[in-house]
């Protein structure tokens, strides 16, 4: 009874998984379609790209991308087509031109401004904080020193 069970198990493990099958079957057109579709926004769901979206419009857009890839159009030509129909909104990444530069450079600018303000404020605090005077420090008395040593050497 054990041998047939093991044989079945080995046979099942030897079978390619659906994931492997999909990877093996993925053509160059599939790969290009996926890469382009990932850069285009689903206009219905807004936060998803058309590759990941389950909306019917996204599905149709994927079909259009695939059709154009099959016709031999480049990724840039296909993106330009969608851009001509929907405007910049269709792109998952804002284009690096015009006012869109604010989106790309804004976080770095804020980081720089914030860093500069923090540096300046810390400098001011340091400058206005008086250094501790060594004259005010009283030497450790013998009893305190012994107590510290005792506590350091005692177990937890």
């Amino acid at each position, binding site marked *: 009874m054990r041998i047939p069970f093991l044989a079945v198990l080995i046979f099942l493990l030897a079978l390619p998984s659906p994931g492997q099958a999909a990877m093996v079957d993925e053509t160059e057109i599939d790969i290009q379609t996926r890469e382009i579709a990932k850069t285009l926004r689903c206009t219905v769901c807004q936060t998803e790209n058309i590759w990941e979206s389950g909306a019917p419009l996204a599905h149709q857009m994927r079909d259009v991308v695939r059709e154009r890839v099959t016709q031999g159009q480049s990724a840039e030509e296909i993106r330009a087509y969608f851009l001509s129909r*929907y405007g910049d909104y269709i792109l998952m990444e804002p284009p690096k031109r015009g006012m869109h530069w604010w989106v790309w450079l804004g976080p770095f600018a804020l980081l720089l401004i914030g860093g500069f303000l923090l540096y300046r404020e810390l400098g001011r605090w340091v400058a206005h904080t008086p250094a501790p005077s060594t004259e005010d420090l009283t030497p450790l008395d013998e009893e305190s020193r012994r107590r510290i040593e005792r506590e350091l050497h005692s177990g937890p």
Partner: protein
Amino acid sequence: MTRGTQLTIGVILFGLLILFIQGLGGDPRSIPTVLIGTQAPNFVGPDVESGDPISLSQFQGKVLVLNFWASWCQECKVEHSNLLKLHDRFKDHPNFDMLGVNYQDQVKEAQAYLKVFGSSFRHVRDVKGALAIDFGVYGVPETFVIDQQGVIRHKWIGPIVGDPYTYLTEKILTPLLNQTTAST
């Protein structure tokens, strides 16, 4: 913290707050279309009722109202009586025509919809959705006005009711048709 630093932080936070509030109100309807002033893409598709081919070139030289709709769309039902009213108002003008585009729908359901709600103009099926993408459609209903030269002059996302209906008829169609009357 100096007054200057406080002011700078305040201005930055206020700017970010404004951007955040704007983002919350983000609506595709408010996104300006890039198609206004461009040539309308040509298309060919089957008539919803007869199956005969309909193409944009058949409407050459006319002011065309192109309305995207679907039988499953609730807002399309809301605007349907207005579409019929609009067609009835302008149908006698020789340079006016109207075409419905049935979007993401089953032909039987589209036919049943037209039977129930009535239809006085033709409707073309967007079989693969490619026509909607060509026109940069986000969803239904959406309405376009194409002038005599085949240029897209107006786009409205949402039902043609209330102010959008008045704007479409008085500010868009009437002047366009008056121009065509004057030029012919």
